């Protein structure tokens, strides 16, 4: 049974594309056949984050509007077996996304893939609506910060009222919280909302907590989904989230600060 999952947030810059890339790659590493679609028409970036920007010939919009076949536009990842990327157009705008067109592509992908991951644009305009409309599940990417939490709450309202499932009165979309850029030191100092606070406010189950990790930037510099870098704690946290998404029970890691050594303590004091 194929699952369509939207990665969304409302607010920009919280890590949607990084998360969509990491989760798609992680699912493929677990042996699933996965397609990740970029819905940010006109501002495509998934191709860069996935490191396939030079291999884009046709895109999602060409498939919808220009009679290009899906397998002409799908880019097969060379590092992970079973991982495919459907890039979007950099020159068209979001009006090129018709609901019927998106539906046709998603239904075709459902036949062939275990997971279809929809990377939503920021905002609550057409691109974001199209990304969430056909989804069975939603991953709401949130930073522990007031504007991100408020926007996530807004998106949850939209998921509950504007998705196809909501309109057809089907069982509600499954929603997951993915808390990213979690800075343990700042949480410990009481400067940053903690996981429990965000969960209490949004009241949806936690899929994962991704710790602040400098390697995320290094991986995006290289076009590498962060799960492909085993040394990255963010990558490890994403892999835990992937296992939870597949139904495993995995305990949360990286949610309490590492044990403090005297040297670390000294370094932090002089920083």
């Amino acid at each position: 049974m194929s699952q369509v999952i939207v990665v969304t947030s409302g607010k920009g810059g919280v890590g949607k594309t990084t998360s969509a890339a990491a989760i798609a790659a992680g699912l493929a590493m677990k042996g699933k056949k996965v397609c990740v679609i970029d819905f940010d028409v006109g501002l495509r970036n998934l191709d860069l984050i996935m490191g396939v920007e030079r291999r884009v010939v046709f895109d999602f919009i060409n498939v919808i509007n220009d009679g290009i076949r899906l397998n002409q536009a799908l880019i097969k990842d060379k590092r992970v077996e079973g991982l495919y990327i459907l890039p979007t157009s950099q020159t068209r705008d979001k009006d090129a996304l018709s609901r019927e067109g998106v539906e046709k592509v998603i239904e075709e992908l459902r036949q062939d893939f275990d997971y279809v991951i929809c990377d939503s644009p920021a905002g609550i305009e057409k691109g974001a609506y199209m990304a969430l409309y056909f989804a069975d599940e939603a991953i709401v990417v949130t930073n522990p910060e007031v504007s991100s939490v408020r926007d996530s709450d807004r998106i949850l309202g939209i998921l509950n009222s504007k998705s196809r499932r909501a309109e057809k009165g089907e069982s509600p979309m499954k929603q997951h919280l993915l808390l990213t850029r979690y800075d343990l030191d700042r949480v410990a100092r009481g400067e940053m909302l903690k996981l429990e606070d965000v969960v209490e406010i949004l009241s949806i189950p936690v899929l994962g907590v991704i710790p602040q990790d400098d390697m995320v930037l290094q991986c995006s510099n290289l076009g590498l989904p962060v799960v492909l870098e085993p040394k990255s704690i963010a990558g490890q946290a994403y892999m835990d989230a992937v296992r939870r998404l597949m139904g495993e029970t995995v305990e949360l890691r990286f949610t309490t600060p590492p044990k403090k050594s005297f040297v670390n303590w000294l370094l932090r004091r002089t920083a």
Partner: protein
Amino acid sequence: MRLKDLFALFRAPSRSEGSASAAKQRLQVILAVERPLTRGQPDFLPLMQREILEVIRKYVPIDERKIKVEVEREADMSLLAVSIELPNAALSRAI
């Protein structure tokens, strides 16, 4: 390392505590106000407002611009306040 830094090593950690709890509190307040408007519930207020006005208009002429509708939400109750400024003529006729 300067002398100041050396002293800083032995001082209690800086007290920036509380900004996270302020964030939580502010979010809880604002979302309590926004949720009824954004969580997909039918927004009955405009329709109810129109119907109330129609009833009043049956008896007194009223000016659309002199109507104020407010909803105040608190922890365990909400208050709907409709205030309508009536023209002097309407009142004197009623009395």
